[in-house]
């Protein structure tokens, strides 16, 4: 694996690495030779326009879709050559927070969180209950255990999905648009949760987001998927980048929260 990403992370050291990945949906190409690496223990954010393949990148890491060609390494294993059965062993090291939550709608939140423990551990029910309550409290939903997913608000659903994704203490956490459709308070809460997980447990977090303000606050590395080639760097490097595409991307369509922050900053400056 002699791949060197633009960010200087050797693929051999990376938890996740893409090597010359090609991917298309029908006639529409999504990736034309994507090579990049995500370092261990860091928060990496994937940015890009609509249809740039952000969510597809996460699904590729999870083995939910397969590339047309190229290799994807997850904790050193090339998952593109693994059978579905062998992929399950790799997936036990991963946690994924889906955009819509993807909680099983016939189960309560408690049972949704207990599900991975019941499937993959030998813990007894009292121990499972303790673990579930610990995670529910960590995401700020101590009283939601008895509710069904359709009884939760969007923000609560995302937090419950995050709690389920970390039930098995994954090595790598994949988050698909964790901030979309949330109010600023919920955004901050989820952002703080992710940062805490990363700092306390050293989990490698790869998240896909449109939310530039949060991205710039929490990311150790940012990958922007442009149609021609991806650009990788730290938030500071990207802010200082002379690449017009990068500055245009980071300045265009700021989210409402970012606008509020900018207004607050300028008001503070005037004072």
């Amino acid at each position, binding site marked *: 694996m002699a791949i060197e990403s633009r960010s200087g992370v050797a693929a051999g050291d990376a938890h996740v690495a893409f090597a010359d990945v090609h991917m298309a949906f029908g006639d529409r190409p999504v990736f034309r030779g994507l090579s990049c690496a995500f370092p261990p223990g860091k928060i990496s954010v994937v940015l890009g326009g609509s249809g740039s393949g952000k969510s597809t990148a996460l*699904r590729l890491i999870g083995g939910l879709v397969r590339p047309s060609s190229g290799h994807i390494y997850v904790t050193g294993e090339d998952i593109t050559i693994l059978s579905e059965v062998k992929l399950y062993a790799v*997936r036990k090291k*991963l946690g994924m927070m*889906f955009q819509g939550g*993807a*909680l*099983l709608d016939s189960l309560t939140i408690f049972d949704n969180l207990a599900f991975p423990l019941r499937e993959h551990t030998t813990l007894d029910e009292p121990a499972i209950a303790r673990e579930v309550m610990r995670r529910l409290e960590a995401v700020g939903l101590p009283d939601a255990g008895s509710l069904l997913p359709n009884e939760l608000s969007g923000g609560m659903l995302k937090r419950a999905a995050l709690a389920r994704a970390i039930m*098995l203490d994954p090595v790598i956490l994949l988050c698909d648009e964790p901030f979309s459709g949330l109010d600023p308070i919920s955004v901050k809460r989820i952002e703080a949760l992710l940062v805490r997980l990363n700092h306390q447990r050293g989990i490698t977090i790869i998240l896909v987001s449109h939310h530039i303000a949060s991205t710039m606050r929490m990311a150790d590395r940012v990958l922007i998927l442009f149609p021609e080639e991806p650009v990788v760097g730290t938030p500071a490097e990207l802010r200082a980048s002379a690449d017009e595409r990068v500055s245009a991307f980071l300045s265009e369509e700021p989210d409402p929260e970012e606008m509020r922050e900018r207004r607050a900053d300028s008001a503070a400056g005037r004072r």
Partner: protein
Amino acid sequence: MILVRLVQDLGWAALRFVDHLGRLTVFAGTVLRALLRLPARPRLFAQALFDVGVLSLIIICVSGTAVGMVLSLQGYNTLVRFGAEQSLGAVVGLSLIRELGPVLTALLATGRAGSATAAEIGTMVATEQLDGLRMMAVDPVEFVVTPKAVAMTFAMPLLSALFITCGLFGGYLVGVGLMGIDSGTYMSSLQSAVVFRDDVLGSLLKALVFGALVGLIATFRGFTSAPTSAGVSAATTSTVVVASVCILLFDYVLTALWGV
């Protein structure tokens, strides 16, 4: 030019059909493999059996009784022309047991439970619940598909037996209660005409095959549906259409080959 287009369309349709058949066969193999692999999930199977069987009881009982009543009425009006109304029990019994029972039960179960199964699995596809299972290292075929498909296979003979029983009861009500046929004559005609091994076991075998067919088609359609509301709707509709046609085709094949 139109002819060329027609041949082209026909070719594409044939290719699509073969492709679909191949994918359905592979899917059936996956379900069988999941069935043989541990862990078995008795609780999920019991829940699926409840959904498919218990929730279909009312429609099966009401339809069975109604079909038996109509059959008895029509049978009596026909038999009386030939002075053979004493054979009403045999006509109603054989028609229900050999043909109408398993076929109509399968069609009703397709409309009620098959479509519901396809819609449920399709919705799980659209809301990424199946992908969520995969990411938790749980095989959705084993967890979602297999219990439902097996439950449908097991429930169908039971529902068919219930349909036939209700049909016989409805036939008895009309034949004996309304048309005035002697109760003993009706029952002895029925008893002497029906052979347990050929008729009853054959009927249950037919229902078992139909159950496997409906279970497989419903789960396959749901599992392979497009992840959109239109996709779920299309999966539901096509489950009912394809399963109904397959039931009628297989009914002919089973009757012609094995005389059941």
